[in-house]
């Protein structure tokens, strides 16, 4: 035998793109000795559609149906970002009500993304009951999205100048019911996941990163907050009406997978609170300040960088206009661009093969926003 059955030997292999333990269509090339990883190399690009190029080919308004596809699990930040950027370039005022609705949509989107995240990381650790519950419960929220926007996942709801439709009748009550349900279920999730000794054993102290290292390496969002750093775009660089809303930014000090999951769990609660506040305080009024003729609308020349806090971290758009009917350039800065390439390549070194998938899930890597 040529050493095939030796247990400790060096070998290289791919995780993904066709592999259950991968977050989407993505792959990582691993070099391992026995069970310990020596080297990891992220290989993105399986979902590259050339969004930035395609957006240059389309009118400003025609891009609205496109942008949400950049990050599939959490599409709304993209729509809001694009709209915000274009509004800032064009000097278009957004009605007050539309801003509140946008906050609501963003937070609903955050809840559903975090629910899939918790399901994902539990699933990666083999706790299949959790994804079954959470994806199922998330579906109630998607039903609310369907009522509000007409679609389950790609809402195409935010458009430059506001939102496309007003809230449907009775929507607020139904949304409150759904939130109550999810809030009630949070206890069940906590008992199943975070109280679980095996879960704790698998996640505590695994995949840790140093807080200073995290800042310097562009870790953002919940992943950074799991290192004890209170950084949140909603507070640091406030957009929409977040400065009028009371909410906490939870932080954890564990810097590990457990903290990262815990942060998400707490943020679900915070987001539920935010949505409730929005429902209470949303003003009446117009919801759309129409931009110009969709085929003729020219946005004045200039450039702008806008960012929002998505469920995965800081999402930013750098939009350049040359005064034409189409964007001159849109650059999408997704959080996964750093999390999914550099951070994971570093974090995986020295870990066990078994932890590759959970670490990847814990960073909440979204391959479509790397590839764009």
């Amino acid at each position, binding site marked *: 035998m040529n050493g095939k059955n030796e247990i400790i030997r060096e070998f290289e292999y791919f995780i993904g793109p066709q592999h259950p333990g991968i977050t989407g269509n993505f792959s990582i090339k691993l070099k391992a000795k026995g069970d310990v990883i020596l080297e990891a190399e992220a290989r*993105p*690009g399986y979902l*590259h559609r*050339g969004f*930035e*190029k*395609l957006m*240059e*080919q389309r009118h400003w308004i025609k891009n609205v149906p496109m942008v949400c596809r950049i990050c599939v699990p959490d599409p709304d930040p993209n729509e809001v970002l694009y709209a915000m950027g274009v509004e*800032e370039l064009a000097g278009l005022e957004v009605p007050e009500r539309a801003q509140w609705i946008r906050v609501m949509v963003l937070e609903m989107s955050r809840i559903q993304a975090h629910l899939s995240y918790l399901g994902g990381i539990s699933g990666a650790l083999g706790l299949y009951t959790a994804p079954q519950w959470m994806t199922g419960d998330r579906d109630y929220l998607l039903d609310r999205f369907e009522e509000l926007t007409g679609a389950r996942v790609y809402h195409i709801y935010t458009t430059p100048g506001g939102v496309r439709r007003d809230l449907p009748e009775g929507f607020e009550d139904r949304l409150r019911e759904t939130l109550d349900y999810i809030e009630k279920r949070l206890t069940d999730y906590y008992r199943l996941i975070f109280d679980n000794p095996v879960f704790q054993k698998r996640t505590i102290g695994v995949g840790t990163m140093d807080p200073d290292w995290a*800042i*310097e*390496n*562009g870790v*953002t969002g919940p992943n950074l907050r799991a290192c004890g*750093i209170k*950084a949140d775009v909603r507070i*640091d*660089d406030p957009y929409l009406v977040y400065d009028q809303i009371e909410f906490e930014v939870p932080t954890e000090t564990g810097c590990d997978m457990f903290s990262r999951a815990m942060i998400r769990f707490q943020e679900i609660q915070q987001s539920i609170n935010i949505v409730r506040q929005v429902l209470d305080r949303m003003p009446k009024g117009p919801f759309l300040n129409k931009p110009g003729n969709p085929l003729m609308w020219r946005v004045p020349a200039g*450039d*702008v*960088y806008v*960012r929002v806090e998505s469920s995965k971290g*800081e999402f*930013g758009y*750098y939009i*350049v206009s040359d005064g034409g009917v189409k964007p*001159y*350039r849109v*650059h999408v*800065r997704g959080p996964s*661009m*750093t999390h999914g*390439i*550099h*951070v994971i390549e*570093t974090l995986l070194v020295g870990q066990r093969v078994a932890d590759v998938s959970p670490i990847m899930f814990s960073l909440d890597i979204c391959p479509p926003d*790397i*590839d764009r």
Partner: protein
Amino acid sequence: MSLEKEQKVVDLIKVSFEDAEAEIQRERRVKVKVAPNRVFPLVAYLKGNGFKHFVAISAVDWIRDGEIELVYHLWNYDEKVHVMIKTRVPRDGGSMPTLKPLFNQAETYERDIHEFFGVHFEGNEKLDREFILEDWDGPPPMRKDFDTRLFSAEFYDQEDLESEALRLKIQPYKGHLKK
């Protein structure tokens, strides 16, 4: 709306980099224009002054000027100011020093820009590895002179309905009579 902290950042840059054109774009946004060779020292300087978060590098192809603009985004977690450092390199054979010694993840963005815009970053070892595109031997696709609609039509036989749909309805006007 006071712009004190933004002004402070502008002053900070002006003190050490006289050749940099810094201006306040709006609240929490500062724009700086510098020569390509000054980017590395400027970023290093800003990193030492609290700009710890390297956000991204954007590239814009200004084909009419024959230049590619690189925009380095930095964020300061304490002051909450975003700095965009803009610099321009020639489209043909443009090259920049890599920022990898300062920020590790700059490497990722540089690979991205190298692949999509064809800008070379000196010192980036992973530049030659395939990043997102695979077996791509065409021109860098995000450049303005690459026509994705033409490519799609020719390479994948995809029809472009846009012109056809409208040709049916409007008889085109041809600058009549004029000679």
